[in-house]
């Protein structure tokens, strides 16, 4: 309680989930632009500290640990790879001179393990690793602090069905755990039969129960007007054609990007045309849903503080402040 009171302005529950994501992405972007180890360490520290101070009791708030571990693994892997599998072509500035081991891997080629490691390559590995770790932590910060349910409410119309399925899933999950516990207890009455039946004895009643509940939920949604969509065949066809065009341009753009020796304007323009078609298709399918959104999440003063901080971070990153 003490903690949430002190940082009320920016506590996870009160701040707009969008603001957290903007802050997280700004930090990640700044990290990707930086090539200074201390700045990267600073960004990681800011992300961790923000979570520590602003998080609440929700399950996703604990996920920051996952991101921290992942970040550490990335740094370690980068360094280990450099030491074990390095190309051993450094001539000067040797940091470590380890004995070289040769392993025959078949396919007619062999692998040199260890060997001389230069300071330069070590620095590069550490920097690359830290940069990825900082990006991971910045995204992790947003994920730990933004309420996914609130974010789902803001899903655009084109993805409304997918968002609805996910909302149903999030609604069903706690009931599913309750029914799992109940069935597990009831299983004690009929004992646990051998092998296969033991698993089915729990999974089947839980699944039956959950399906029943989900159908009730679907009936309730339908009885309350869910599913109103404009189903004019002509507009469906137009949407489909735009999607098709978008994907065709994208695949062409990707192929051209890979084949050409250096990036050319023409590759990028093909991709941009793909983007434009994708955007049109997205707008078209969003337009087919007819809905009001009554409860719009309010942006509060805390969000403004967060957004200005993010803007400042981004500006200094682009200004080259983080590079040296």
């Amino acid at each position, binding site marked *: 309680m003490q903690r949430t009171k002190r940082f009320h302005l920016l506590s996870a529950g009160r701040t707009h989930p969008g603001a957290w994501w903007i802050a997280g992405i700004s930090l990640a972007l700044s990290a990707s632009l930086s090539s200074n180890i201390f700045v990267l360490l600073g960004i990681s520290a800011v992300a961790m500290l923000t979570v520590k101070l602003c998080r609440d009791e929700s399950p996703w708030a604990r996920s920051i640990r996952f991101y921290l571990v992942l970040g550490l693994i990335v740094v370690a892997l980068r360094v280990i790879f450099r030491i074990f599998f*390095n190309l051993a072509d450094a001539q000067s500035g040797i940091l470590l001179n380890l004995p070289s081991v040769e392993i025959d891997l078949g396919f007619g080629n062999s692998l040199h393990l260890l060997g001389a490691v230069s300071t330069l390559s070590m620095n590069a590995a550490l920097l690359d690793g830290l940069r990825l770790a900082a990006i*991971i932590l910045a995204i992790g910060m947003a994920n730990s602090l933004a309420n996914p349910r609130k974010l789902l409410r803001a899903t655009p119309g084109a993805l409304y069905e997918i968002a609805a399925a996910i909302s*149903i899933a999030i609604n069903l*999950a706690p009931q599913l755990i309750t029914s799992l516990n109940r069935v597990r207890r009831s299983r004690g009455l009929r004992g646990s039969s051998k092998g296969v039946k033991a698993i089915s004895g729990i999974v089947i009643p839980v699944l039956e129960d959950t399906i029943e509940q989900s159908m009730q939920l679907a009936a309730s949604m339908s009885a309350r007007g869910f599913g109103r969509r404009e189903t004019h065949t002509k507009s469906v066809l137009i949407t489909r054609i735009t999607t098709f065009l978008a994907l065709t341009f994208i695949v062409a753009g990707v192929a051209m990007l*890979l084949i050409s020796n250096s990036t050319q304007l023409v590759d990028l323009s093909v991709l941009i045309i793909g983007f434009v078609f994708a955007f049109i298709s997205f707008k078209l399918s969003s337009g*087919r849903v007819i809905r009001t959104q009554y409860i719009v999440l309010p942006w509060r003063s805390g969000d403004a503080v967060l957004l200005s901080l993010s803007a400042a971070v981004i500006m200094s990153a682009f200004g080259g402040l983080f590079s040296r």
Partner: protein
Amino acid sequence: MNLIISRFSIAIAGLASLLMFTWPLFIKAGEQNETLLAQTIFIVLMPLVLILVLIEFATGDISSKQLALLGVLIALNAVIRLLGAGTAGIETAFFLIILGAFVFGSGFGFILGASSILVSALLTGGIGPWLPFQMMGAALVGLGAGLIPRSGNKWVQNLWLIGYSVLASFVYGGLMTMWNWPYLAGVGTQLSYVPGDALLSNLTRFIQYEIVTGGLVWDLGRAITTSVLILLTGTALIATLRRAATRAGVGREL
């Protein structure tokens, strides 16, 4: 007409996403900046392609009953994942995706695969640039499972499902490793990709990377867990899901 365009779109999207997974094998560019640019562009493109395909499937009048059944399987997947979290090497997400897709069809499978991974990531952490790639990978697994032929014979059916599970586990693992290869190994080691090198030599280096990092062991773990779970619960789960489908009047149509 509608259906033909839709099928074509999905095939093209599949091709695009495969290219975005396996680009280190094909990229010609010599300068490192170019490869970095491609890498960054794909991080933006993958979610875009994913969204387009999701819309493509959802546009086909998905009913609230189908959404409810999707919700059930997504929730079940998330709960199983939560309960099994921390059990190393046990990948439980796949068997439900494969069984659900098998009963309700490819489109359902695609959405189920993508959203199962998304919900797990929302609940347990794991949102990041890799997420759209994982979602696409699992979605493709679901898409494929919807195409498994049905058989009246229980054993033939199980054989098909298990064969597909093993294949899907290794292909999915391979694609994900291929994606993280440039990030984790970086460039400039013997196991890194070399832009513009011959396809075969890059592939060789990739396989060496897979062996050295133990990626294949994870894939094997995934293949075994999925197969065992399908063997243990498949028949009963399929019967229950089919019953639900008949009662709800939804078939293998998406």
